[in-house]
């Protein structure tokens, strides 16, 4: 079963697609951010599952084991998670500022307000 062998790839692709779809299709800024987070997390999953080696153990040197999992993807993704959390925080802060300025977090309503205000007026 080829599909089952690569189940981690399929899961990552499915999650990434769902996330990207939410970013594109949802007008609500918060929902867009949720989609964006999902998209990023899917990529993390892709990285981390690759580090797993069948029969491998945690990478701590010991005479009893010979096969170890690759720890580097985990370290990379730890950094990427920090990036992702910061992005989400900045995004949410912007959404709050937009809510304060426009009174809404719906993209179409923001566009409507902008075009009602005339070109390039505050």
């Amino acid at each position, binding site marked *: 079963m080829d599909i089952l062998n690569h189940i981690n790839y399929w899961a990552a692709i499915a999650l990434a697609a769902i996330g*990207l779809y939410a*970013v594109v299709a949802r007008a609500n*800024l918060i929902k*867009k951010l949720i989609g*964006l987070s999902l*998209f*990023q997390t899917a*990529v993390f999953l*892709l*990285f981390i599952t*690759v580090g797993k080696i069948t029969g491998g153990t945690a990478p701590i040197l010991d005479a009893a084991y010979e096969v170890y999992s690759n720890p580097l*993807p985990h370290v*990379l993704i730890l*950094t*990427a998670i920090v*990036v992702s959390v*910061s*992005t989400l925080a*900045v*995004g949410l802060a*912007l*959404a709050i*500022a*937009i809510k304060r*300025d*426009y009174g809404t977090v719906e993209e179409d309503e*923001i566009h409507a307000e*902008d075009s009602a205000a005339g*070109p*390039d007026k*505050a």
Partner: protein
Amino acid sequence: MSAGHLPILQVAIPLIAAPLCVLLRRPGLAWAFTTLVSWALFAISILLLIRVLADGTISYHLGGWAPPFGIEYRLDAVNSFVLLVITGIAAVVTPYARQSVAQEIAAPRHNLFYALYLLALTGLLGITATGDAFNIYVFMEISSLASYVLIALGPSRRARAAAFQYLIMGTIGATFLLIGIGLLYMMTGTLNLTDLSVRIHEVPDMRPIYAAFAFVTIGVLIKLALFPLHIWLPNAYTYAPTAVSAFLAASATKVGAYVLLRFVFTLFGQEFSFERMPLMEILMPLSLVAILVGSGVAIFQTNLKRLFAYSSIAQIGYLALGISFASTSGLTGAIVHIFNHAMMKGGIFLALGCIMLRTGSVELSALNGLGRRMPFTMAALVIGGLGLVGVPVTSGFVSKWYLVQAALEADLWPVALLILLGSLLALIYVGRVIEAAYFRTPAPEAPAYREAPWQMLLPTWILIAASLYFGVHTEITVGVAERAAATLLGGAS
């Protein structure tokens, strides 16, 4: 302090300076500190470029760990030149920023503004200096996150909406890059760019490498804002504080172009990118559309910042066009244009900041009769604009000369014609600016605006004068660019 540590200082100094800046509560102090830092960085980048040109590539091992296991900072003719451009722009924009920022941002936030500005600078310098693929991603996110907030600080509420749109696009781009890097790592087990460039050709199954190439290229093109992935750029540049527009327009897209060069030529290699993958067939039409559409849309803009933002999209088209030729003259043109466009567009946005300071508006109508009221500012704007057109004696002419030459060498004379057509379109939008400033009378109720203060005029004119100087004395810029092009085309080494 040993000279051997210069490559890491380039990144470490602004990174450490940023949190220190938050502690400097007095706006003047934060500004002076940031100015000092940017000048120090500029001095370091000059030293680095001199050393690279004299002794060849510098390889710096972070923490003493040898590559490919440790992180390597690798400086050759290409990235030390880009470092010089970025720090040079920062060294000019920071002194200028004081009055512009004082007008557009509330005083209690100035220390935070300068801290973010330093972080954005850290990210851009880090992307350029590093020789590690994952490091590029992390620094790209550092600079992007700082830029989102810098843009959101703009005076209009639309700045927040523009920053949000940029955040979504930018994060998708960076995550695409991350997927690409992940695929490369899976197939090769390394993240060092030099090591990768050797190992990807030893991979038995090339299909993941093809996918990695596609993800990396698209991710970088979003950051570069090449048509049709440019949607975030006009709003971001229009509504950001003027000093931020000037800094980002002159540096951020240049770094995007550099990353594209690095991945396409150093990592994947010219043969892979252009013969096994259809990069030329994709990049060239998109660049030409970017040139024509960017310039065409710019003609119809009434907000000057938006006008020059669309002009940036066209200029990015020229950059990408030079890359798509994959020939020495094409790459020389692209790399020279990185430098020249940074000077011209930086100077133009700084001049717009002067206009904003005095008239409180950057609408085309605010320019009416301004040629007599603010002669120095308007002269800078016009010379910068003529540089975008590519008039001889401006540096814009030099880059276009090489691009046209590259097109003719490749027997693509329709492309050469389209480059010239793009210049004509640029002439129209610059002509509208000249017409408003010099041939229209100011509205009767308009106050008599004074010339901008010298602290802002001087930086503006430094960039404009540099663009004129390097339009006539091309040995330095073209000399370095040719070496950089040779390094890139020289293959993996």
